[in-house]
């Protein structure tokens, strides 16, 4: 199954649903080491992504993701708004104006998303941010794609890798974002942004399965 505008739209819809279902968990992760708004931010942001897609009815998967990113930036606020917004926008741009793409191109788009987040936020792996979930996820996706695997398999591998990346954030001390203000007290908790990244990649695996 190729990745077209309809699948891209379904991805955003599924992400929105996943975040809504887990909003309380994201919020309580953020309350522990941040300011307790990550659930609300992500719910608001992905709702705006959906609305923006519905309003523009883009016909390519690239335009779908650009519309999602713009919607997120425009309505989310906080750290996650610009970071996720830029990520989706840059992923969309990387898809170009193809009506549908295969796994390697989608993998390159996910890598562009990761690059956007790292450039904007200045975080590296190990800083206890969403980068810790997305970095291994992109690598896993690209590995499957490089082996000629289908998008479904690549996305499932990416979601699994993100999940592991999320778990790996627990023992880390945060160096970026609000959690960094807690110093050593940030140790022992999952990073909320890594948790939402995992949900979004799991949603990709679901809609492409």
């Amino acid at each position: 199954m190729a990745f077209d505008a309809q699948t891209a739209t379904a991805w955003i819809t599924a992400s929105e649903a996943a975040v809504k279902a887990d909003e309380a968990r994201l919020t309580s992760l953020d309350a522990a080491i941040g300011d307790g708004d990550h659930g609300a931010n992500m719910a608001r942001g992905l709702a705006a992504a959906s609305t923006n897609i519905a309003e523009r009815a883009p016909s390519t998967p690239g335009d779908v993701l650009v519309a999602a990113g713009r919607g997120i930036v425009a309505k989310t606020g906080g750290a996650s708004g610009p970071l996720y917004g830029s990520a989706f926008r840059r992923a969309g741009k990387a898809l170009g104006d193809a009506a549908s793409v295969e796994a390697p191109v989608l993998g390159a788009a996910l890598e562009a998303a990761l690059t956007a987040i790292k450039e904007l936020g200045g975080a590296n792996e190990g800083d206890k941010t969403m980068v810790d979930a997305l970095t291994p996820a992109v690598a896993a996706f690209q590995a499957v794609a490089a082996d000629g695997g289908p998008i479904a398999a690549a996305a499932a591998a990416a979601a699994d890798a993100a999940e592991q990346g999320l778990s790996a954030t627990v023992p880390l001390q945060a160096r970026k974002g609000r959690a960094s203000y807690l110093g050593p007290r940030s140790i022992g908790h999952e990073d909320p942004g890594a948790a939402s990244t995992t949900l979004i990649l799991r949603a990709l695996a679901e809609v492409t399965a």
Partner: protein
Amino acid sequence: MKKLINSPDSVIADALRGMAAAHPSLAVDLENRVISRAGGATQGKVGLVSGGGSGHEPLHGGYVGYGMLDAAAPGEVYTSPVPDQILAATKAADGGAGVLHIVKNYTGDVLNFRMAAELAEDEDVRVVSVVTNDDAAVEDSTYTAGRRGVGGTVFVEKIAGAAAEEGADLDTVARVAMHVNEVTRSFAIALHAGTVPAAGKPGFDLAENEVELGVGIHGEPGRERGAMAPVHDLIGYSLDVIHADRPISGDVLVMLNGQGGSPLIELYGAFAEAVAWIEGHGGRVARSLVGDYITSLDQEGFSITVMSLDDDLLRLWDAPVATPALRWGR
């Protein structure tokens, strides 16, 4: 959770309606969520814009007016505003001499303001940003997000605002703002966490004999938990931290700020201890503010902010200001 609200979703919209009705000196754009001066931007004057999450009232909307900000962009509770909103505030503040963005150092605020600045440049408004990071509770390092911007932001807004009102150009106003930030340090202690309306319960739980030392302004836990103690000791602890980071000496401006849920009678008592500490260390409290100036919803506790004064800073501090929350000289 019991609050004077209609619903967690309507808190910001309701408060903005209230601000609009209470302060004819303000223009409140309920749609874009921008608070600006009723008279519009002052032509030829550098515009000052700040913003950030809501829940810190009177910051920032309460500091819009003569001698201070030109516009403010309030986000959701504890969530930075979005770029379009900051852009709208920037345009409302632009009198042709460029606009200063006063940004508290939080990843979200920094990123959203940066995006807004880029959008503004696209529309030919020159923007310079100053990031405040006066919180002595947080270890500073180039490998981390750095220090938080807290109480010192009030001083930056007042003093940079006075410089702009005097006719200083954008780079000069930015330099003044950065200088204020450099000579200012803050520290805060919470007795009881505030409750974000959407969360419905306090950000952290403290026992009767516990306090959070080194909290920020977002109901987050502090750098460590400590034992409850007389206010003399809590103030001493706070000023020790500040003093170790940047020695307190000579004439200083002090803000003894309430976090929203501690009454004024307690803040005055805390301020008395601060003055005694500073005088005991050879300093002199030449100017002060005591009250709720940068809050964390209904959180109980205080923050203390200390700035070194020189003649220029003193003159700019004393210059007239007429905003809902800070007013003298006119």
